[in-house]
């Protein structure tokens, strides 16, 4: 009998001085913050799950130097580097399997460690066809946006509205001024400009998951009521880039329903429209019209203004949960929502996807 799992503590570091701080310090602060938020100590944790990004951060087996800062010495540790959000998936799965009662999940992104983040992205491309072609995240994202635009067309005003909404929300949440127009005249790959793409930041994020009595006894648990993850094909030429089929599969598995809040990873302004459609929140080609009466989308600003690399998807999950826990700070939706969706994609043009459904009431496991 599977016992439901909840997020009972969470924390992320500040972005303002992160680039000048050591990675281990950021990780330790996030770990300590999540434990404090959960009212726990590291001795209470059975398992630590990380998601590492060796190439981006210039460390082979990055879990080695970071495990201590994440409290993993003397503990069961696993790194799930396929995506930051997969660390959440695996922590959740371990608790469903009855392996312990509390799992600490820690992810981070420190793109500033890399002189040029696009260079390691190039190494993500297989060496025979894609790498000589120069494929990186930006080009793959532009190919996705161009396929969507060709199929459905794009309203420039809708794109500008997304830029503005995300910048305004992030300005409130991070308590800083974020301009929506930086890079708006810099073309990066049709139809996208620099302003349509995520802006990198450095951040460490941690969450404490619990099951059974420790979850029920927690203050403001955000129950994980559904989870789905899936992968699409790797070869871009064999995919319909105007859609995110993996995200659609993951959404169906998790059960999106009618959430109050959605924290969704947008690979670009245009990609965000396709992602909302894949979640089933808008008809195909109509993602840009999603406004009013529906769920609140990215009240924290999402990843377009603040994108901590490999951890960006995990941050969406945590922010969705924090809404239900009433701990979303300047992004808090009022009244406190009862259900939220965290939705992410990763890999070239959203090859992989994960969707989590959070609820304030325990609803079992889907």
């Amino acid at each position: 009998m599977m016992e439901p799992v909840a997020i009972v503590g969470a924390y992320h570091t500040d972005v303002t001085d992160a680039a000048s701080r050591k990675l281990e310090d950021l990780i330790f602060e996030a770990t300590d913050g999540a434990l404090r938020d959960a009212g726990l100590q590291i001795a209470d944790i059975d398992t630590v799950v990380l998601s590492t990004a060796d190439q981006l951060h210039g460390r082979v087996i990055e879990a080695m130097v970071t495990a201590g800062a994440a409290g993993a010495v003397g503990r069961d540790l696993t790194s799930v580097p396929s995506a930051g959000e997969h660390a959440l998936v695996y922590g959740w799965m371990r608790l469903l399997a009855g392996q312990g009662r509390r799992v600490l999940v820690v992810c981070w992104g420190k793109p500033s460690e890399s002189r040029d983040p696009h260079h390691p992205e190039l190494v993500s491309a297989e060496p025979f066809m894609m790498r000589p072609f120069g494929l990186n995240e930006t080009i793959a994202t532009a190919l996705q946006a161009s396929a969507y635009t060709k199929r459905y067309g794009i309203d420039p005003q809708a794109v500008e509205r997304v830029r503005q909404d995300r910048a305004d929300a992030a300005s409130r949440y991070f308590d800083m001024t974020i301009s929506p127009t930086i890079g708006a005249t810099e073309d990066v790959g049709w139809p996208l400009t620099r302003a349509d793409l995520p802006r990198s930041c450095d951040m460490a994020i941690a969450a404490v998951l619990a099951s059974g009595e420790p979850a029920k006894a927690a203050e403001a648990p955000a129950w994980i009521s559904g989870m789905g993850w899936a992968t699409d094909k790797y070869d871009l030429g064999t995919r319909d880039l105007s859609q995110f089929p993996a995200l659609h599969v993951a959404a169906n598995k998790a059960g999106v329903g009618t959430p109050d809040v959605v924290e969704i990873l947008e690979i670009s302004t245009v990609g965000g429209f396709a992602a909302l459609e894949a979640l089933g929140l808008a008809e195909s080609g109509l993602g840009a019209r999603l406004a009013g009466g529906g769920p609140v989308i990215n009240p924290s600003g999402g990843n377009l203004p603040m994108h901590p690399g490999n951890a960006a998807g995990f941050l969406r999950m945590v922010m969705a949960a924090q809404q239900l826990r009433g701990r979303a700070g300047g992004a808090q939706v009022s009244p406190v929502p009862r259900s939220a969706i965290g939705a992410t994609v990763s890999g070239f043009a959203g090859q992989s996807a994960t969707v989590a459904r959070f609820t304030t009431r325990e609803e079992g496991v889907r």
Partner: protein
Amino acid sequence: MRQVGIIGVGQTDFVTRRTDVTYPELVREGVDLALADAGLSIDDPEAYVIPLAPDALIGVSNGERWVVDTIGAQGKPLVRINTGGASGGTAVQAGYMHVASGLFDVVIVAGADRVSESESAQSVLNKMWDVGYERLFPLNTITMLALSAQLYHAKYGATEEDMARVTVKNRGHAALNPHAHLRAELSVEDVMATRMLSWPLKLGDLCPSSTGAAAIVLASEDYVNRTGARAAWIRGVGQNSETFWMGDRVGPRAEGDHADADALQVAIHRAYQQAGITNPREQVQVAELYAPFSSVELHAIEAAGFCGKGESFRRIAEGEFALGSDGPVVNPSGGVICSNPIAVTGLVRVLEAALQVTGRAEARQVDGANVALATAIGGDHQFHAATVVSNHLEEIVS
């Protein structure tokens, strides 16, 4: 808890280099072998777990995304595991969680490595260490474990000949294993005559850089009962992590002792506890212990509880732990010292353990093998995984 069985295994021959296949095609070879062994088709796995250690060894970052089309994983759940050399062992445990959680009935754990793709594996592995000090030292896995061997020798009085006897035993086993990379039998004199790399480790004490693939298919007890599949059951899993800093493994304020394998011992104990093993020397008949160097096997045998600390080399000299001896047999496949395709090395340990308890290990079969232990080690002897398998779901007795 839901019981989980290993219903199919597959491994290629391990060699120095393969130029006839890409990395995804190599992974597919392991997948095909394991699915055929389980009597399944490419469409049958419900989820995928891919062990892949340092990306730089195959020269492609996030190579798990590249294999999706080739192994038929599109539209399905897939995650990658990386705990360095322990990745294969950790990935098996991740696969176990997929099934034990009740979320899936049939899951495949599949991977490959092509260590020869990197010009120098040790140059890649040097990047494991911190940028400011240890990387410049220059530490690599050979120099790091030479320090451990020196401490073990000083603490317990072992010699280079004692290490050589580990290689001799395992090469003798590998000669019986058609998949092993290094299969030529050696004498103690042969090992002693090999080139010194970092005292006291010589070339004959070390594993090769291997290329190859491996996969296992995991299934729920319900599935096994429903289909009548042959299964080796995963009875216990355990992991543990040690401090990254080797300076914290020596001296009066040490958190561990770099001579020993105390953190591995904890991981094994956790697996034993779940499996109900209290007297491993009597209850475990075979062990596939992750030991890339001869010196590592000495303290790994002790961590497994097969003898006391500082005793293993004397017992090996008396013929224990070898095929045909009384008591647990260690590394009947030849072990890591004879084949080390890093990403799947820990997976192969579990795979060989499953073959042993189901009586399918052919010439390397241990008589009466009902319970087996498989371990894996990653990082700078930092991440430890232990898995206990058996051929039954009854209480494990002596």
